[in-house]
């Protein structure tokens, strides 16, 4: 007998676009919402969107969004009966899930034990292997001798990975015996520094793999379904930047075997809520990578194809209900992550205030974002500004819609990756879906906007801004004329508007 527990009020232990995303779904279910925010986010959209909001500390994540005690106390204070962790922050910490449950609250996600088992890379691999999921040949050992033996058997290059880690930290590619010792030591040290756990393991390094993952969804009634796959091959430093569904060019039989493998793994642990089983794909072979025991950033591409709401499903499942019936997927969807990074300058993190914002829209376009004019983008949290997702009857329609939609996007005040993404999505290699995790190194090794569209327009505009002939300090208009006057009925010539400035005189 499954315990039903109606969620009346949900605290969202996150910020930015995902907090807003979760609030929206909760509201459609009639669930009241509580936002938490650090002092840096007081004016953020997720705070305004929630039914209630509570400050949980200073900007540093360790003192706010990662502070589980303060967050659980906030749930108690506001009378919330459930907590959704979003992604990142506390979302994959079994001890947080446990603390939430011990506080008598519903944790929207899998049980702490499942999270703990799958969160440890070594344990996760063991579970996957036992469930019959194909594995990249590898060895769970940190001993140089064992690893040398493994490399002698499988051949270089090999990959050293942190057992506890994620996000590429602690990873080292080793090309030959002589590099091994140094790489092992560095990887272990980095893993210890990042995760407090220096254990590493090795595996065969695949030369040109794709990253493909399966969305699973399980309820407490024993139902477990797979909602297709996502190709997330386009990554920079192990960070996904473009994701799509279906994975182009994947054969139906490979897809079917991959979905079955994901379900087998999920069944083996009694998976509950939304999760993602990640694979490396090499031709028609696929190998287990890891399980993410939370909502993924890229979940919307699945939602668009299946017409479902994964956050709503998580909330239903958390309250003891069954997974909804979901039909067959249709069409294709692509997501681009727009980050506050200066793509032209080694993707250096960018900050600033949003002085002007134009967001894309139209048929098949979804933009999940907390951006709005006036938002201050700081340096305390990750650089995700928004996710632009397009849907089409075919991949090509979704791709073209993405090119058009990225072309509509404009953000003055915070350097970002939109122009870079537009160039990728418009490119020949992307159009023919020549995907691998090395896509960017292969096709965009030194992308630069100066080689791109619009540089002349930008240079002339910059000269006009510098001379005071265009734009305004801080993006704030000086003259109140436009807003104060009645609707203008006559179009002024550019000369009328600009002739007051010296630059516009011949010289």
């Amino acid at each position, binding site marked *: 007998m499954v315990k039903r527990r109606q969620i009346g009020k949900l605290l969202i232990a996150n910020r930015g676009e995902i907090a807003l995303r979760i609030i929206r779904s909760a509201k459609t279910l009639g669930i009241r919402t509580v936002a938490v925010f650090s002092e840096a986010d007081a004016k953020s959209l997720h705070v305004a969107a929630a039914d209630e909001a509570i400050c949980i500390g200073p900007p540093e994540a360790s003192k706010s969004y990662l502070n589980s005690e303060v967050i659980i106390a906030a749930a108690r204070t506001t009378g919330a009966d459930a907590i959704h962790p979003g992604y990142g922050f506390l979302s994959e910490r079994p001890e947080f899930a446990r603390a939430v449950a011990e506080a008598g609250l519903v944790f929207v996600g899998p049980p702490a034990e499942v999270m703990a088992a799958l969160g440890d890379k070594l344990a996760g691999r063991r579970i996957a292997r036992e469930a019959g999921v194909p594995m990249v040949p590898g060895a769970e050992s940190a001993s140089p001798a064992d690893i040398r033996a493994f490399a002698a058997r499988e051949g270089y290059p090999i990959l050293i990975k942190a057992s506890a880690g994620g996000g590429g930290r602690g990873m080292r590619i080793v090309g030959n015996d002589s590099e091994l010792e140094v790489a092992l030591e560095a990887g272990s040290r980095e893993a210890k520094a990042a995760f407090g756990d220096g254990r590493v393991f090795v595996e065969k390094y695949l030369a040109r793999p794709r990253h493909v993952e399966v969305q699973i969804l399980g309820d407490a009634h024993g139902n477990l379904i797979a909602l297709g796959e996502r190709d997330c091959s386009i990554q920079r430093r192990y960070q996904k930047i473009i994701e799509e569904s279906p994975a182009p060019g994947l054969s139906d039989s490979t897809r079917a075997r991959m979905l079955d493998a994901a379900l087998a793994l999920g069944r083996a642990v009694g998976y509950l809520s939304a999760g993602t089983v990640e694979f490396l794909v090499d031709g028609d072979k696929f190998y287990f990578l890891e399980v993410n025991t939370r909502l993924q950033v890229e979940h919307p591409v699945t939602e668009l194809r299946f017409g479902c709401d994964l956050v709503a499903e998580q909330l239903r499942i958390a309250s003891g209900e069954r997974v909804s019936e979901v039909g067959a997927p249709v069409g294709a969807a692509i997501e681009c992550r727009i980050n506050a990074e200066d793509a032209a300058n080694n993707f250096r993190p960018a900050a600033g205030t949003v002085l002007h914002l134009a967001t894309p829209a139209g048929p098949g376009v979804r933009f999940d974002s907390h951006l709005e004019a006036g938002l201050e983008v700081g340096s305390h949290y990750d650089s995700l500004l928004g996710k632009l997702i397009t849907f089409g009857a075919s991949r090509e329609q979704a791709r073209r819609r993405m090119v058009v939609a990225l072309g509509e996007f404009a953000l003055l005040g915070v350097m970002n990756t939109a122009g870079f993404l537009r160039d990728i999505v418009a490119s020949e290699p992307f159009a023919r879906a020549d995907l691998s995790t090395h896509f960017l190194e292969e096709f965009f090794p030194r992308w630069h906007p100066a080689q791109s569209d619009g540089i002349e327009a930008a240079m002339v505009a910059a*000269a006009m801004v*510098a001379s005071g002939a265009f734009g305004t300090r801080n993006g704030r208009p000086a003259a109140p004329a436009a807003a104060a006057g009645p609707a203008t009925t006559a179009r002024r010539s550019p000369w009328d508007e600009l002739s007051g400035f010296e630059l516009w005189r011949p010289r």
Partner: protein
Amino acid sequence: MKLRRVGDGGEFEVDILATEGSTVHARVDGIDFSVSFERIGDNAAIVTVNGRRYRVFGAALRDRILVTAGPMGFEFARVEEGRSQSAKGLATPELCAPMPGKVLRILVKEGDEVEAGAGLLVLEAMKMETTLYAETPARVNRVLVEEGQMVDHGAVMIELSPAHAPSHSESGPPG
């Protein structure tokens, strides 16, 4: 006037030569061309170059000029002639913080002569470490920050003077 692209340090000379109606005749690094420039708001315009139209937004922000053309964003700084003289060979005579963050490590000390590509300072922002490099040889005149210190965007952290050769910027080489 002379402008510098922030980041890659590329400099260019841009002048508005004349306007006729909405046509602007400009010269960029000695090459003349014409654009159509139609204002559609306080800091918005439609700029047409070679038959292609761009929706452009622009603003000055402290020492920077921000411009977007379609989805592309650009950040420029004006190179002041006098200063450029006194700090010949350097795009900027100062290493400024490209974003708010925490100074993790200072890799040089006052009086050091550094080669192009030498790391000057490591900044932590957005959960990432960013090393700021010298793009050309330079001499470290003054270090104005300490390790552990929080800095705002634009804060001067290190003062430089020319060593032997041309330009420098706060950007690092692609890694």
